[in-house]
């Protein structure tokens, strides 16, 4: 365990995962995963696609239950919470879904106002001000009256971000925030994640496989592969890590410990078997 | 989704239309209205046999409906059926010697009460009894009698 630059203050941990094990059917998604996420930092969780990074966020949010291990978020053990307690905890968490997941029957303004209307009894004028403040923060105050279908992918994600911070959560989880964005909107979102984290004093968890963008803003990085944590540390220390897998992943090499070919029977035999059968 | 005011108005109209339809079914299609309005004065008549006469059957004079049967009871002393009828107050000049008969509309149709006015100078009032009555024709009795007579004749 690399704890060189970790403060040993336990109360400073917003999320603490110990011995996490999660199965989907018979397939092992996570096996003995330990994670610590510190307050006020941007923590990145990186790994190849299909390693269950989204699943990890759902586990933190209590939408899935682990098969073993503990998940403590803000002092509460998530899998043990009652529905009511869980919903109270979720009011302190924001989550940005990969697709944005905006409500398609509501316009941008109403999307951002949604959590405020559901959880507070604020008068309309204050809701309006709050929504405009959040939209201003993501630079889309001018798009307040547009419908989600009229937005570009990057704008939709920024609206979803404004919605996720509407209730001023203490922690926000980003699910692949950079995927499928053009370079400009990618840059905008990279900046926003860092900016919002520092300006609002939040804690951010970014799940991503975009190495360069994520490394640019993360304070701490966990690398996950095949259900285990294979590397962790500040981005610079990780780059110096000589582990061949980390090197392949961070430098985007096509072949390495992760083979280019999915496990398959011998190529020649496979072809001959097909020819014989036909 | 249109503006919320439009939505509310449209939904209000929809609910009103639904309730109006229910009201129509209750008042116009079924017989709630006749339940609610048994107005008119009441006459009674005793019959030996009322056949299949039902409450709410029409009461007619010269084929015109003037009222409805509102109650059917049984007199325990002289063993006769007591039929109570509500008559439209517009028709208040039936002589006291008016007679009542139970007929069938068509061969197999509904039973109804037909009144035949007499010639007396005084008129029936609310609660009066019609003394002259003719019972319903019971098809089985008629057929039985007919067969019986024929059998008699053949001997």
């Amino acid at each position, binding site marked *: 365990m690399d704890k060189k630059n970790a403060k040993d203050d336990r109360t400073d941990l917003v999320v603490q995962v110990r011995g996490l094990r999660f199965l989907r059917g018979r397939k092992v998604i996570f096996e003995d995963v330990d994670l610590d996420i510190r307050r006020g930092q941007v923590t990145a969780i990186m790994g190849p696609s299909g390693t269950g990074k989204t699943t990890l966020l759902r586990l933190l*949010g209590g*939408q899935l239950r682990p098969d073993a291990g503990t998940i403590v978020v803000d002092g509460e053990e998530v899998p043990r919470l009652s529905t009511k307690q869980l*919903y*109270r905890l*979720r*009011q302190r*968490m*924001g*989550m940005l*879904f*990969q*697709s944005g*997941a*905006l*409500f*398609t029957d509501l316009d941008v303004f109403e999307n951002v106002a*949604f*959590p405020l209307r*559901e*959880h507070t009894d604020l008068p309309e004028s204050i809701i309006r001000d709050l929504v405009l403040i959040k939209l201003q923060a993501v630079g889309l105050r001018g798009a307040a009256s547009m419908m989600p279908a009229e937005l570009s992918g990057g704008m939709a994600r920024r609206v*979803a971000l404004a*919605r996720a911070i509407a*209730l001023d959560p203490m922690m926000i989880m980003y699910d692949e925030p950079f995927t499928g964005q053009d370079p400009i909107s990618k840059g905008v979102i990279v900046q926003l994640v860092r900016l919002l984290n520092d300006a609002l004093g939040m804690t951010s968890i970014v799940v991503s496989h975009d190495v360069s963008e994520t490394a640019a803003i993360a304070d701490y990085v966990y690398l996950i592969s095949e259900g285990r944590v294979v590397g962790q540390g500040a981005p610079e220390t990780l780059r110096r890590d000589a582990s061949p897998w980390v090197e392949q992943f961070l430098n985007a090499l096509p072949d390495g410990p992760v083979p280019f070919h999915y496990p398959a029977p011998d190529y020649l035999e496979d072809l001959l078997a097909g020819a014989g059968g036909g | *989704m249109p503006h*919320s005011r439009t*939505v*509310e108005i*449209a*939904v209000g*109209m*929809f*609910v009103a*239309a*639904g*309730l*109006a*339809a*229910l009201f*129509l*079914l*209750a008042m*116009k*299609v*079924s*017989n*709630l*209205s*006749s*339940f609610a309005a048994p107005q008119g004065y009441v006459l009674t008549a005793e019959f030996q046999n009322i056949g299949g006469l039902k409450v*709410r059957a*029409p009461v007619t004079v010269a084929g015109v409906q003037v009222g409805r049967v509102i109650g059917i009871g049984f007199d325990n002393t002289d063993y006769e059926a007591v039929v109570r009828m509500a008559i439209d107050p517009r028709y208040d000049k039936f002589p006291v010697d008016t007679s009542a008969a139970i007929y069938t509309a*068509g061969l197999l149709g*509904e039973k109804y009460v037909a009144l035949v006015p007499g010639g007396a100078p005084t008129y029936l009032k609310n609660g009066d009894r019609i003394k002259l009555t003719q019972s319903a024709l019971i098809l089985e009795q008629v057929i039985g009698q007919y067969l019986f007579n024929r059998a008699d004749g053949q001997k």
Partner: protein
Amino acid sequence: MGWIRFLGRIGLRFFERLGRGHLFLVQLLAALPSLLPRPGLVIRELYSAGVRSMLIVVVSGLFVGMVLGLQGYNTLSKFGAAESLGVLVALSLVRELGPVVTALLFAGRAGTSLTAEIGLMKATEQLSSMEMMAVDPIRRIMAPRFLAGFIAMPLLAAIFSAVGVLGGYFVGVGLLGVDSGVFWSQMQANVALHADVINGVIKSAVFGLVAAWIAVFEGYDAVPTSEGVSRATTRTVVNTALAVLALDFVLTALMYGVS
């Protein structure tokens, strides 16, 4: 042995879904009280389930009533009983066709759109994100739609029957020359408020509950892909039709058969 196993698997899957559906119904019913302070949510859904189904219900009701008038007249006049046309039209509509046909139309018009809407919300992670915003989708999305369907169905069925009676009247009295007074008086003399009209309303309320429940459940239970949503939509129509027709038999037997 393969086919026995196959049957077993189908049976298990069927009962599993049935169980999930009933658990879901319990959740829906438990969520209904939370709608009391927010009638606006239900009103919006009454708009999509009720107002938007009006046109098809009115037009179908009119034509069904007209056909009943035509067919009924042809048959009844053979027996010299054309005066009973009003009775035939009204009883057929109020007792059977009103509730049943409206429920089938409702499944096709409102049920499918409910299923597709909820299925797509699931596929696009809207339901998930709502959960993560600490908003229970069953309370916020499913329960208002379910309640609106349940309220809208009896009203739609009443509109269908009323319009149908008028359609029968147009054909019978207007085209075929049945006497107008006889049409109405025969109808009133033979249609009972409780036995016919109220039982018809009870039927349509039961069908409304079932149709709204199936539509919402199929959406909620849909596989979150475009194929899954399209399958769920089909299942809504098929399952609602089967459930309504089977329930109609049971209710008719209870209301009119055993006496």
